[in-house]
């Protein structure tokens, strides 16, 4: 029987949640026995090869590319999990949500005290994904089945969740594994 498939991605995140996935230490050997990785930065597969059992989303949606990738994950994954505070509430990137986008860009590329930008222009290449007006949590863009909070979620939280879901058990995290920091 084919092994269940797992896919992961980092949208507007810092890859800290992926570091936490790696932080399951030697259990990663067990994980490799349990599952195959599909699209993920871990194996560098860029596009889905087919349907996937579990998708792990790190980061919120800050630009149109994030939205496209997230929708692609929803389409391919039976179970979709928000991993970490950025996917759940926007996290640090969402601190810009209280400031108009134009002001953010002007501060970053024109007016900031350490800005060196002789062109005097805000980057606007077609190759650069268009920024959204604000950073959106994943569950405000597509349906998310489970949330694993934390910045990042402890490796044990990710492990417990994967093992439970791979064994078709209910995800019931103990008190000490739900943390927002």
């Amino acid at each position: 029987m084919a092994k269940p498939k797992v896919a992961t991605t980092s949208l507007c995140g810092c890859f800290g949640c992926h570091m936490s996935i790696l932080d399951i230490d030697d259990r990663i050997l067990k994980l490799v026995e349990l599952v195959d990785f599909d699209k993920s930065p871990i194996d560098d597969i860029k596009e889905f090869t087919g349907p996937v059992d579990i998708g792990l989303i790190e980061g919120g949606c800050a630009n149109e590319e994030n939205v496209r990738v997230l929708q692609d994950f929803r389409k391919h994954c039976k179970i979709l999990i928000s991993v970490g505070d950025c996917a759940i509430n926007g996290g640090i990137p969402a601190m810009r949500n209280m400031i108009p986008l134009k002001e953010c860009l002007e501060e970053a590329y024109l007016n900031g005290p350490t800005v060196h930008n002789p062109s005097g222009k805000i980057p606007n290449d077609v190759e650069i994904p268009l920024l959204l007006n604000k950073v959106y949590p994943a569950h405000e863009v597509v349906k998310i089945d489970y949330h694993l909070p934390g910045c990042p979620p402890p490796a044990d939280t990710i492990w417990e969740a994967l093992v439970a879901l791979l064994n078709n058990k209910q995800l019931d995290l103990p008190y000490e594994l739900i943390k927002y920091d």
Partner: protein
Amino acid sequence: MSDTITLTIDGKEITAKRGQTILQAADAAGIYIPRLCAHDDLSAHGSCRVCTVMVNGRPQAACTQSVADGMIVENESDQIRNIRRNLIDMLFVEGNHFCMFCEKSGNCELQALAYRFGITAPKYPYLYPQRELDASHPDIFIDRNRCILCGRCVRASRDVDGKTVFEFVGRGAEKRVAVNAEATLRDTKIALTDKAVDVCPVGAIIIKRVGYKVPVGQRLYDHEPIGSNIEKGAKKG
């Protein structure tokens, strides 16, 4: 007429003193009723509604409702749990609660309640409101992004410190805690030792330069849910 009365909470008969609130009677009986605006050393406010219980079939705030003989109180039903969970969810989405860098994380009563209720994400959309931060005072700052309008600082400053440094202004979504001064917090009589500084359940009123002093794993709510001390029958701190 006897001073002692009996009532039931979730079918368990407890004794209480006449004049006590349901919250006080439950605390004394080792039954935890979640609360945010209520504080042992302050007058009841009844504003956060997290302590909502069913009293003889009607929702009431346990912190303001007095006990009565034969009263039937529901504290742990699915219906009550749902009401409280929704209230906690709303408090999270209507402010800007960035737990990952907040000095209060691990010691925050709002966060601890969310942990106790097993909330992994709120069910309402985030509002990301624009809120003001006042860091003018040399030792204390107010971050209104984290304020839940419980009014503990308002009551503590007025009733315990005798200074009335804080007061509510505005209505509805515009409501906020203002300082009693010409301009900012530094122009008030607030002091580090004030009760008003001590009672904030969240990270809205923070003492500068002491953040993150307690390591992760040793903070108030790292291992045991909020209310555990009451459930163990210990005097709460």
